[in-house]
């Protein structure tokens, strides 16, 4: 990363020393001091951010008898996977896991497809009503779904989608972020490419499917990761939509353990850590797409 390195406020030229010799010496001495202080501060902060997760994961490896035994130890004395095993087997957790996976995968595929079509239309055709629809899409970012919980619930119920996966999936497909990401991407694709294909006699939709869709693969991947994360972590909407315990998602399952009279921490820790695994894996594999994502205004799930 050459740019950020240069952008770092690293000038340590003292006001008095205009002599180039002195300046370089001053910069070198200050450089070491600054390197030490910047690195120290960075890692103090990284520890503050990393330790809670580390403590949580290490705790989940402790047998339930050791969870509350004093003195607390960071590293488990007798590490065991029994917490995960109990969590996985109890309370239908494996079923929740499968349910969530189904919902996430379907929602993600449909979201990416629909957003790609919309984003392309918004970028490459100019009609007045397309511009109007773009404003409509942007308006959805102003009104988060939390604001419309009750009426949205009634609409989905009236459509006969209550207590079904479709009731979770369909409302989630409409995303301003997705449309916006694809629109921004297709704006950067030269119009000449479309014109050339038209001259060659290609029809509009096959231009889109054969040329544009393959081009937009990186954006598809980025949105897919974001969408998967939103849906995997979603809580309130599935909670409202589902009343059949066999259809519950992981987050509802975890929350129901928290809401119990006496929290079974061993199961809760195991279940929570298991629920983190898919996202951490997706993130580690596709890290560069997430980190480099051109996330912009209007980001909303």
């Amino acid at each position, binding site marked *: 990363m050459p740019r*950020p390195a240069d952008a770092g406020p690293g000038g340590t030229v003292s006001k008095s020393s205009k002599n180039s010799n002195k300046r370089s010496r001053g910069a070198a001495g200050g450089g070491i001091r600054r390197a030490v202080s910047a690195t120290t501060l960075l890692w103090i902060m990284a520890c503050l951010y990393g330790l809670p997760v580390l403590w949580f994961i290490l705790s989940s490896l402790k047998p339930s008898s050791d969870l509350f035994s004093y003195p607390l130890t960071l590293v488990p004395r007798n590490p065991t996977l029994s917490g995960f095993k109990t969590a996985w087997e109890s309370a239908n957790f494996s079923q929740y896991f499968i349910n969530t996976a189904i919902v996430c995968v379907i929602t993600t595929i449909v979201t990416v497809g629909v957003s790609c079509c919309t984003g*392309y239309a918004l970028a490459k055709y100019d009609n007045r009503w397309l511009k109007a629809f773009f404003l*409509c899409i942007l308006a959805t970012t102003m009104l988060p779904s939390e604001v419309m919980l009750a009426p949205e619930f*009634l609409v989905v119920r009236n459509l006969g989608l209550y207590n079904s996966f479709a009731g979770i999936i*369909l409302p989630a497909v409409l995303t301003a972020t997705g*449309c916006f990401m694809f629109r921004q991407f297709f704006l950067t694709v030269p119009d000449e490419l479309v014109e050339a294909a038209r001259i060659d006699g290609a029809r509009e939709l096959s231009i889109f499917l054969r040329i544009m869709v393959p081009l937009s693969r990186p954006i598809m991947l980025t949105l897919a990761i974001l969408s998967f994360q939103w849906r995997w972590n979603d809580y309130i909407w599935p909670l409202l939509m589902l009343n059949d315990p066999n259809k519950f998602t992981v987050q509802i399952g975890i929350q129901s353990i928290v809401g119990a009279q006496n929290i079974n921490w061993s199961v809760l820790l195991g279940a929570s850590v298991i629920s983190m695994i898919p996202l951490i894996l997706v993130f580690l594999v596709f890290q560069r797409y997430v980190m480099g994502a051109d996330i912009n205004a209007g980001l909303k799930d």
Partner: protein
Amino acid sequence: MTKRASDVSVSPPRRRSKYILAPLVLIAANVVLFSLFFVWPAVLGLIYSFTNYTGVGAFQFVGLDNYHNLVGDSTFYDALTRTLLYAVLFVPLNFGLSLLAANLVVNKHAKGASVARVIFFIPWLLSPIVVGVLWRWLFGENFGLVNYVIEQFGGSAVPWQSNADLSLIVVVMAASWAWTGFSMLLFIAAIKNVPVSYYEAAALDGAGPWRQFISITLPSIAPTSFIVILLNTINAMKEYPVFVALNNGGPGTSNNLLVQYIYETGFKRGQIGYASAASFVLMLILMAVAIIQLIVNRRVENR
């Protein structure tokens, strides 16, 4: 941006008449979804907010009664003030932490920045429910790591769960921790875009790192700062899962925030009409926040 093609090729009227079907097909799915899951609920919600609808059966129009009752409803008022207090604490804390993280990560003197960046980002991946559980585990009064450490240093256990203000502060810390990674990414992109020559010129004029940060970095990333503040304010106003998993709005009902209030009134007590009115108050607040920030943003950019 796309002006080029329309300038050279076919004239606008013909172009417009030529391509109607293709774009229509492309946006059809989203138009249907938009009408079903945005327009319909929004209109319905507005109508219900003037009725005594319970979710089933007939209902009557009650005019502004719901809004009138909200004004005198101390539970709603508590939820509203608690939500605003939460936002006032969360937004600056998250802003400061993520700006600090972004600056440290792009700092050329800092060693191991790419690893640290991943560490800062991981909490954002966790679901709000898991974030709540994790911080509940850390801040347990009798068993938590934090109180254990405090006691090791000779302090006495802090009532993180049974004191209403402390339990709000724990949620503020948890949410700031969880959202840092996301805001940090936005800041990193903005900081990278500041021209290097500005810093070189400032360095020649003898400006120190702090001075450069105040006079160059901060003004240059102002648009991103506004986006971060706007998104975080909206997120804070609709926070719910972290609270539910961390202390369930407790102790008691002292930390019930707006969304939880809407959820409880609408779905637990079946007062859909009343909950819709509360939703519209929340919506008005969100719109006010957005408009104020747009105005401020424009003023700053024009300066």
